[in-house]
């Protein structure tokens, strides 16, 4: 899978938040074989050194880092956060979140496009966290985004793919654009479904971090993503309404 100019072996991307311990996080990443980890930037007091400890932990994962602008509600906040993240993580990649609604954490489409344009003009490679809206997707591509990250469902809900029609339409509308279903997945079957629909990858966090056994769930998702991708590449059969016998009828005993 190619994202901007980078070849990524795994189609599973994993967040680094909410794990019960650093050891569990590390084991979950190992079992997931994820190629990309999402990270963030947060305030720190001089004596804490929490950032340094976390930096050591993620560096040891030996995965590509994708910093986010999580929690930003305005274009200015998101742009400044992206600039700080680029310096801290030394990468032009940014998962751009501009949140427009407190309860659903739904992206603000207008702010998202504006921020995406500013950041691509500044040389960022933007991964916009967006909805399944095809018009918005087109605007984000016009703004210079080369990857889209449509939501499956609101962040942290585990509801899966809540608008299958919308996601299918989005996938069909821009077949050449790498798309990552980001957020809302709770179960491996939902990830498999996204991959069967032709999405290039999935990104999850809560579904793994909040599972009773995060490492085991991480491996479950890894296998589901592989299975779904294989199915997509294999060109699935067309569904039909009436039964069609799979066992040959010709040569049956007792047939007059």
């Amino acid at each position, binding site marked *: 899978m190619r994202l901007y100019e980078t070849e990524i072996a795994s189609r599973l991307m994993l967040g680094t938040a909410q794990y019960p311990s650093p050891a569990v996080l590390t084991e979950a990443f190992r079992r997931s074989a994820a190629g990309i980890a999402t990270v*963030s930037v947060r305030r720190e007091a001089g*004596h804490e050194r929490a950032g340094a400890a976390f930096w050591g932990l993620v560096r040891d994962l030996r995965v590509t880092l994708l910093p986010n602008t999580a929690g930003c509600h305005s274009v200015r906040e998101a742009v400044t956060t992206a*600039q700080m993240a680029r310096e801290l993580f030394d990468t032009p990649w940014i998962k751009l979140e501009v949140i427009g609604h407190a309860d659903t954490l739904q992206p603000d489409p207008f702010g998202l496009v504006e921020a995406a344009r500013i950041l691509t003009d500044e040389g960022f490679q933007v991964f916009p966290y967006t909805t399944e809206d095809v018009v918005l997707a087109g605007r984000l591509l016009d703004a210079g985004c080369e990857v889209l990250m449509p939501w499956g469902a609101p962040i942290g809900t585990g509801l899966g793919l809540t608008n299958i029609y919308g996601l299918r339409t989005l996938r069909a509308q821009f077949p050449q654009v790498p798309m990552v279903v980001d957020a809302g997945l709770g179960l491996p079957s939902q990830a498999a479904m996204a991959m069967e629909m032709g999405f290039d990858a999935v990104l999850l966090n809560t579904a793994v971090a909040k599972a009773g056994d995060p490492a085991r769930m991480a491996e479950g998702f890894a296998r589901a993503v592989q299975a779904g991708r294989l199915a997509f590449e294999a060109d699935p059969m067309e569904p039909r309404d009436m039964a069609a016998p799979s066992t040959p009828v010709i040569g049956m005993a007792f047939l007059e």
Partner: protein
Amino acid sequence: MKIMINGTPTETRAEMLDAVLEELGFGDAKVATAVNEDFVPASLRGQTALAPGDRVEIVTPRQGG
């Protein structure tokens, strides 16, 4: 003078951003900074003078989804 550091009112004797970081004990820690919501690259901290009431953000790498 009194400035805001990560949302907290803080008294400082330093006048430049790099000196404020030094005073707060960041030393050579891996941080990124913003003043009054504008990003200040590490290379410009020594030339960035602060005024009373300025809002300074100091961030480090953290967990994210």
